[in-house]
């Protein structure tokens, strides 16, 4: 067996009292696809940072291609062919594909002069190894996420990568693109390049990984060849507990739909979508990315007016042209991008949670700050947000708390319909199930809920009805009591057809 390209031996790292890594061993051989699984805060990113030299280690050693180090620097890591593709890809959106691929290589060569040919030469070589088909002159900001990823991978290849870390690479890819990516990783493997990828999407993990290492609270709790582990076991190792989720059983029944959509279309986003949601329902909307789910949600919320079709709300035909329209009708949206779209980072929790009801708190012509505080505190209590955080900047809260703030904000308007777009992404398991509890509770009180999610278990256990959307169309409706979770998963992954 060849010598490992990366050999992490008993590495520990702590940050002011928090043990981020605890005597972790991790080995990767050339051409191996090794998955790094773990919850938020398990130490995955710290491990990557230590290996790539962004962080120093307290003890242990890192052996790169046979050379032992106690302190890796970014240039040492790069010399040994260690490359990272971050989730945000870290590309230059205004530069061309060729230039993005070639930039760091040229930078390392310390050349002064550079010509477009230099860039395309370097780019072509990298692209050839990948059988990638990209337009060298295309400006990166106009590319799809999948193409951007290809650019990032080519860039790593141009830097003579022997080991590529990929951080959650499939989050923004369609099914088809995921297959392409997995094929790409296969290609890399055949070239002797190792890939370590961090993912919580277990189905993909099992599809491509040779080995799966699991981190929990800074310790490596398991390292298995693919054949020896299954999803249940993996979840157990990742969370340390059997995840018990309470399955949703609808109690509030009202057959007069709150939302009725008929033949809704928006060019390039979705077409001919018809659906209805009744009060007390939690309707799941699942499907690969690119299916049009968020686009649909934004249309209902007024940020993406449809081209054709009708929306009926509470029995009346409506035209929703702005979030203010939506709010007036009683529609709320917990957005996908919590930080960019949902939070006022430096403002206090109190301001955040009352953001949507400011005008409603008017007494005559004015608003009393005490009213805002009181209402804010109420909502915080109800959603179990840390009460002493009323005046604290919301950016200092944990992801779970933050999401509950956003949820509370919309519940405050007494909504008839609540749309949740990927409500538990990036949240630890305990908080996840707490949010699920709140969601189910809201439904039992008569609110209609549309839950968009990528996670089959989340949708399976929290919805009384599931809509499967793909390529802009609703292709199936699933009753979770009539189908198994596995059947749903196979549908979503495209292993069965409708």
């Amino acid at each position: 067996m060849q010598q490992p390209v990366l050999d992490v031996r008993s590495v520990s790292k702590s940050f002011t009292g928090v043990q981020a890594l605890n005597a972790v061993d991790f080995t990767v051989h050339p051409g191996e696809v090794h998955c790094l699984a773990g919850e938020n805060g398990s130490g995955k990113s710290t491990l990557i940072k230590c290996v790539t030299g962004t962080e120093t280690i307290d003890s242990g050693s890192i052996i790169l291609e046979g050379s032992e180090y106690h302190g890796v620097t970014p240039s040492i890591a790069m010399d040994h062919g260690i490359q990272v593709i971050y989730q945000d890809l870290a590309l230059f959106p205004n530069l061309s594909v060729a230039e993005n691929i070639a930039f760091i290589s040229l930078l390392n060569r310390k050349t002064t002069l550079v010509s477009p040919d230099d860039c395309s030469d370097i780019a072509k070589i990298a692209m050839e190894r990948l059988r990638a088909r990209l337009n060298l002159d295309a400006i990166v900001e106009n590319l799809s996420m999948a193409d951007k990823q290809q650019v990032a991978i080519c860039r790593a290849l141009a830097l003579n990568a022997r080991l590529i870390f990929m951080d959650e690479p499939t989050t923004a890819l369609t099914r088809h693109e995921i297959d392409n990516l997995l094929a790409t990783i296969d290609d890399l493997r055949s070239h002797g390049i190792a890939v370590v990828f961090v993912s919580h999407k277990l189905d993909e993990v099992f599809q491509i990984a040779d080995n799966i290492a699991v981190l929990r609270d800074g310790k490596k709790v398991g390292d298995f060849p693919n054949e020896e582990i299954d999803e249940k076991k993996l979840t157990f190792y990742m969370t340390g507990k059997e995840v018990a989720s309470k399955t949703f059983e609808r109690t509030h029944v009202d057959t007069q739909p709150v939302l009725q959509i008929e033949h809704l279309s928006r060019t390039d986003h979705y077409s001919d979508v018809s659906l209805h949601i009744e009060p007390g329902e939690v309707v799941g909307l699942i499907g690969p990315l690119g299916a049009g789910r968020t686009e649909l949600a934004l249309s209902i919320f007024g940020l993406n007016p449809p081209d054709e079709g009708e929306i009926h709300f509470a029995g009346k035909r409506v035209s929703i042209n702005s979030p203010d329209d939506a709010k007036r009708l009683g529609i709320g949206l917990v957005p996908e991008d919590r930080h960019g779209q949902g939070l006022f980072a430096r403002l206090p929790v109190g301001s955040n949670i009352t953001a949507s009801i400011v005008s409603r708190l008017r007494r005559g012509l004015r608003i009393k700050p005490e009213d805002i505080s009181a209402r804010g505190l109420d909502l915080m209590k109800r959603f179990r947000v840390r009460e002493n955080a009323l005046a604290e900047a919301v950016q200092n809260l944990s992801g779970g708390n933050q999401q509950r703030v956003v949820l509370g904000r919309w519940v405050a308007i007494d909504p008839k319909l609540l749309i949740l777009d990927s409500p538990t992404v990036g949240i630890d398991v305990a908080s996840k199930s707490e949010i699920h509890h709140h969601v189910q509770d809201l439904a039992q009180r008569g609110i209609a809920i549309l839950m968009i999610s990528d996670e089959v278990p989340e949708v399976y256990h929290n919805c009384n009805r599931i809509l499967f959307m793909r390529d802009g169309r609703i292709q199936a409706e699933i009753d979770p009591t009539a189908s198994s979770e596995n059947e749903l998963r196979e549908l979503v992954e495209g292993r069965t057809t409708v």
Partner: protein
Amino acid sequence: MNNFLKSEEHSRIRLLLGVLVLTLLILIPLLGGRFYNTRNFTSMGFQFAEFGFLALAMTLVMIAGGIDLSVVANMNLSSILGAMVMTSPAVQAAVGPGGATLLAIVIIPILAMIFGGLNAILINRISVPPILASLGTMIFFTGVAMAITGGERVGDFPMPFQKIGSTTAAGIPIPTIVLLLAFSLVAYLLDHSAWGRSLYLYGENKIAALFSAIGDRRVVRMTYMLSGFLAGVAGIIFISRINSARVGYGGAYVLQAILVAVLGGTDPDGGIGKVWGVFLGIVVLQVLSTAFNLMQVTPYVRQFVWGSMLLLVMALSHVLAVRRQNKEVLRQAEERLKKVSAG
């Protein structure tokens, strides 16, 4: 509970207050009676009134996360138009000097408000970045004013109008009183009105404001129109004081307005700012300015000092913000440690 930076901003206000007191104390031996006399205070009062309105206008836009490069050009254009109406023989014949004055006082702020609204239209309807929008409107307003007047001054206003810039009530200049009222009103609105509270939200994160349905377009519109209105009021005081309206007046005020806004704790990124801090900043600047004048320091020294102060305040802000962030990281780590050892 308006803002978690409450203690931080109040500390800024305390700091300014301290600087002010210190400066005033230093001036006693330095300038003595030349500074501390009624006539001086009165004249200071007049000067900082016109600037105060501009500073308030700029502060509101900065809290919204933008910078209004066009406030002064707006002030000039609306003043010129108002002055032209006021000094036209036809108008004077129809309503007399008193009526013409009243007309001007009404027209100027309203025009300025509309011009300010132009910025809002660009930002709301065409998604023009605020800096670009105000750059464009600034050049445009100046251009219109230039085309209309050919660079000539519009002057010789009716007596009642001229009095505005020089009347006192119980020794306090009327414009100063109006300024104080304006500051009080705006401060109140910022904390107690839907517009005010939404303004902070919008300034902190425009996108989240959109997604939270706070009526972001209305916030922008009202902010820029109010800012325009204030610029118009500044214009009235300004041209009354010098008895003429002309293109190009007040160019230095843009820097000064940004300076006092920043001094007073306003964050140019938006979402943070308190008008009383800005007021203190204005007072400090006015005291320094007058002291400089009395000491016969050239206006260039003043320019140098203003520029340096701006850089110093912003640099200090940055350093303190970094320190605060580091403290926060440490605090969170300690909390985690406590949790781990407890549970």
